[in-house]
């Protein structure tokens, strides 16, 4: 008699899924945590050209910008102790006058932008390179700004 009672419960086939509620809550929590974390790195809409990504690790700041068609000579980069300025001009080579454009989505023009860095840098050791249309600037942090390990002495 006891065996029969045990096998009769729970009845999955009846249509009520006890895990359905939990599934729904889990999906909502996932959605909520996505909205929160992605919100911090939100993109600025139609900001100033060029759009930049700034990252850091222990020793350096890295600044990247997408600048297709711009050669190193067309760019002017200058740094101070805590900020970086990029300016230049994007030129599009003139095409044959006898033809017609079907699409014209690329633009030309001047740009100039300054970005403040979160901490001081060694301006003498900044390295900038431009390859495949991506500019990467490596800015070494000033010694005072690097995180230092503190050894805890056991007393």
């Amino acid at each position: 008699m006891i065996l029969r009672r045990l096998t009769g419960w729970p009845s999955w086939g009846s249509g009520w899924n006890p895990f359905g509620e939990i599934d729904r809550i889990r999906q909502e929590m996932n959605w909520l945590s996505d909205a929160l974390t992605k919100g911090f790195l939100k993109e600025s809409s139609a900001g100033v050209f060029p759009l930049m990504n700034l990252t850091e690790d222990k020793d350096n700041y890295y600044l990247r910008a997408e600048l297709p068609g711009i050669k190193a000579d067309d760019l002017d980069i200058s740094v101070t102790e805590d900020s970086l300025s990029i300016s230049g001009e994007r030129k599009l080579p003139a095409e044959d006058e006898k033809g017609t454009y079907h699409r014209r989505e690329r633009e030309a023009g001047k740009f100039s932008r300054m970005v403040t860095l979160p901490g001081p840098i060694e301006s003498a050791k900044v390295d900038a390179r431009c390859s495949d249309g991506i500019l990467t600037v490596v800015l070494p942090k000033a010694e005072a700004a690097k995180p230092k390990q503190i050894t805890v002495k056991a007393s």
Partner: protein
Amino acid sequence: MSDSEGKALQAREKAEVTTPGEQLKPGLVFSPAIDIFETDKELTLVADIPGVKAGNLNIDLKEDVLSLSGEVGPPEGANEADLLREYRTGRYFREFRLGQMVDQSKIDAALKDGVLRLRLPKVEKAAPRKIAVKTG
């Protein structure tokens, strides 16, 4: 054009592609900005694809449909933490249906500084083909 040289360049967010069907690999797909220019002899297509190296670019012309697809390597090192992210990175994809016959053997592609320049020469007028109708 002389008037565009003086004005400031506006920043544009990259247009994300929503393709029907799923991509095999996860990641964002963007539609690159493209200029298409046509003369009597050829079509020129210029695309902004920063971050794509020549080895990662695929250009396909099949039955009048031209497909461009380019892979981008991960730009940041693994240990880097984000401070400011104004643009996302992902591969590029765009397709065009070409109106007229392009001579496939003479297509010329050059990739420099993240800009792809495709020259598609037009085929000389194809001779009209007569199709014989068999009566049986």
